[in-house]
């Protein structure tokens, strides 16, 4: 059995506590990076990360993209969506197709 974790600023991740997701408040870039690697090494299958936090550690997120696990999923923080999550979808489409055909409409 694997676990689910969430990384982000305290205000955003607080609410997830009640759902039984392990929360990892992190505000500094170093903290975020370290937490990502730590969780990836441990038995976490899904790591949610807020958009703000994802900006601090783009390399760490990209690193795990090609592995089967963990799935690192960018979600909007409590301050609202910046469209970064959708950007991830767009990126994988671009990578596969070579052009941004899905979102051109």
């Amino acid at each position, binding site marked *: *059995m694997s676990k689910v974790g969430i990384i982000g600023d305290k205000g955003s991740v607080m609410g997830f506590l009640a759902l*039984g997701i392990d929360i990892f408040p992190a505000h500094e870039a170093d903290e975020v990076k370290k937490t990502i690697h730590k969780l990836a090494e441990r038995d976490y299958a*899904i790591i949610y990360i807020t958009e703000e936090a994802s900006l601090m550690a783009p390399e760490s997120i990209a690193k795990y993209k090609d592995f089967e696990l963990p799935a690192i999923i960018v979600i909007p923080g409590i301050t609202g969506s910046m469209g970064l999550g*959708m950007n991830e979808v767009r990126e994988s*489409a671009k990578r596969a*197709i070579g052009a941004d055909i899905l*979102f051109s409409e």
Partner: protein
Amino acid sequence: MARLNVNPTRMEMTRLKQQLKTATRGHKLLKDKLDELMKQFLNIVRENKRLREEAEKSLEDAYQNFIIAQAVMSESAIGESLMIPRQAVSVKVGKKNIMSVNVPVFDFQSEGGSGDIYPYGLAFSSGEMDSAMLSFSDAMEPLLRLAESEKTAQLLAQEIEKTRRRVNALENVMIPNYQETIKYISMKLEENDRAGTTRMMKVKDLVLKRAIEEKKRKEAGA
């Protein structure tokens, strides 16, 4: 195109022809694989997009309710009420094979949550907190499905990129190289052939000339 560095012999040519055949076959197979992968990917990435929209929408609702709850309750009261979660989410990770790409399948189990998601007594918390928790637990399901779909899309994208590189390498480098080399060898061999024929003709001429001279001398002597 660069020609391979091999000896122009018949044996080498047979070997190369075999390799060319294999390469062509591999190229065709990989191209088919790429087509199918692309087909699957398009469906998945569309689904991915839809799920993300859905998840972000429900998450937004949850955050909004949570902000309202934060406004009503003090921070310490919130921390206190959330401190001991009632349930624990765990994931069973399965595997699915899409065109020989292993993608994870997540199966979720909430433990301990006996239908009640509130980790606190209702007496000391506000109603806003209750609705925040409710909308968070509503957001859970789309979020989890999003995780699965997004990871699948990422893995497939990676595989497609890899396959396309292989197809391109075969199509634009390997196969032309083989063809070029085979052509070079066959031309070289034909050239050798012609050289051999010419040499034979020359030798024949020489032998004939000598024989005629011999005959003439004999006739003159006789």
